[in-house]
């Protein structure tokens, strides 16, 4: 079990390298890309190692050099006018993105999971219908439309919260609410499906027949089993929330990674696009591995299969 987790964590390295390779490759062959003609810069100026050959350096040299700079010097190069270190920007901006996405994930989970459970345990009831309607509504209204309404009501009409500028007090409230709206609907859908599927299982009837209290049947057994598909979809949910975060950053001018990426695209700065895309991809790889490990902890069947497979190596019982 521990062995498997360590193996999974070590797997991050090749996967991250491959992901950067992919992103670097895509942006390298993009028509008009600066990655293939420019000299490779680190933030202190011209790269000392490559300065002599950089003009002719091929794809592979550039890729290796880029990875070397990123992993050993935490250096993503400098922007086109060489004025700012991209790395400083990337780290500063990820802090905002993580803050926004993390808070939104928390809010979505805290509101969406109980709502999904309530909906699944009273199918067809009043609560179920209201919750399902809210979920459909939240997933249908585009986040920017939702944000328009929020900004108009709370910032312009009521003046309670700033619509702009995240450094002010309460500046994160509207972005978090915006991102959470779609997050909540996502959680409701996933949890409702998982719990109602579990409640249909024979063992739930068997547990009831054994005289367990309904509270224990739902609170302990149904939820424990629903946890497996819920954690399995956690990666997808988090990815969706991250996507929503990017849009909310643009709308509320949060200096996050998504906003940085969008700005870089409009200014066609390939080094920045690369840094944003690669760091996002790396972040998602790590996120997926974390959810994999959580899944493993949640599902005893999977756990047993893995420990059995690892223990009896090549025993041919598979």
């Amino acid at each position, binding site marked *: 079990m521990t062995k498997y987790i360590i193996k999974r964590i070590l797997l991050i390295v090749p996967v991250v390298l491959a992901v950067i390779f992919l992103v670097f490759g895509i942006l390298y062959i993009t028509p008009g890309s600066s990655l293939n003609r420019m000299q490779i810069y680190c933030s202190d100026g011209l790269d000392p190692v490559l300065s002599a050959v950089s003009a002719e350096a091929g794809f592979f040299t550039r890729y290796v050099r880029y990875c070397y700079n990123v992993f050993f010097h935490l250096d993503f190069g400098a922007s086109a006018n060489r004025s700012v270190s991209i790395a400083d920007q990337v780290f500063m901006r990820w802090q905002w993105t993580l803050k926004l996405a993390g808070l939104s994930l928390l809010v979505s989970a805290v509101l969406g999971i109980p709502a999904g459970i309530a909906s699944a345990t009273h199918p067809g009831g009043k609560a179920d219908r209201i919750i399902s309607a809210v979920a*459909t509504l939240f997933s249908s*209204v*585009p986040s*920017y*439309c939702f944000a328009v309404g929020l900004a*108009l009501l709370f910032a312009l009409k009521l003046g309670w919260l700033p619509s702009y500028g995240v450094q002010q007090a309460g500046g994160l409230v509207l972005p978090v609410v915006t991102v959470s709206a779609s997050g909540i609907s996502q959680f409701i859908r996933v949890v409702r499906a998982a719990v109602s599927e579990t409640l249909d299982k024979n063992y739930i009837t068997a547990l009831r027949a054994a005289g367990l209290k309904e509270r224990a049947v739902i609170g302990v057994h149904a939820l424990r089993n629903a946890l497996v598909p819920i954690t399995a979809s956690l990666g997808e949910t988090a990815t969706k929330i991250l996507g929503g975060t990017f849009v909310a950053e643009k709308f509320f001018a949060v200096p996050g990674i998504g906003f940085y*990426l969008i700005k870089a*695209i*409009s200014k066609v700065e390939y080094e920045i696009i690369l840094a944003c895309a690669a760091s996002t991809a790396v972040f998602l790889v790590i996120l997926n591995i974390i959810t994999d490990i959580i899944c493993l902890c949640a599902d005893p069947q999977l756990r047993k299969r893995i420990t059995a497979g690892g223990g009896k190596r090549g025993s041919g019982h598979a």
Partner: protein
Amino acid sequence: MRSSGSATKKEASARLRFFKNPVSVAALIVFAVILFCCVFAPVVSRYGYAEMRVSERFLKPCSDHIFGCDYAGRDTFARVLYGGRNTLKIAAVATVLAALGGMTLGIISGICGGTTDMLIMRAMEILSAVPSLLLVILAECLMGWGKGNFMYAMALSALPSVVRLIRASVSQVMSKSYIEASRALGVKGLRLVFKHILPNILPSVFVHLTGTFAEQILLCSIMGYVGVGINPPQAEWGLIIFEGYASLRTAPHAVLLPAAVIAVCVLSVNLIGNGLRDAVDGGDRSDG
């Protein structure tokens, strides 16, 4: 094996259930109205999407301009209709592309199994692990910017879920005994797929695609909003919101009314999808 006669009967009863549901019917009517207005925008609206009248900047809604005018003095209603033309067309084409690609890959994956299946499913996992916004941007970087490529890029983001659905259905159906029976009778390969598998999975695929269409509308308008989709001065739903947002304080109508139309449109598509799902599922339940 059930004859095709009973399949059409099942379809008919699903259709009946759909039309008995007042919410689905209302959603269908609302969407049909929006679609009609967008498709026939030049007839419905007296103004063009790029006609500017400086004197009418930020005009409030009135009988001439029922949605008012935007910062450039363009009729917002016309822009919403022409924008809907773009957004709905792109979303529809992307959905169809995703459906065709997804069906092909899903069927290949489900039938071939083994390494082919593994490779396709790994690729889909990678695609679905990237937020669609980033995926579309990267794909557009790779293929070059433009309306056509934009549609391909959007289709790419919807591909994994379609492939997964088709593959799951195909391999589930493949394991059912009547397929084994037809195999034993010498029916095989693509004939099997087109004759026995596709008719079985089409209803659920169609329900899924309705949801995909709604997602694609959202995605397309988000790309427009963010500034990497359709370029101005063309109209696009997200773009309209983006252009209006700067003047939210002075002319909220230029944002709120288009936002309401977009929200109602996506909501109606989702409700149609829900209605279809209930109709199709309901048929299965009473059968089983």
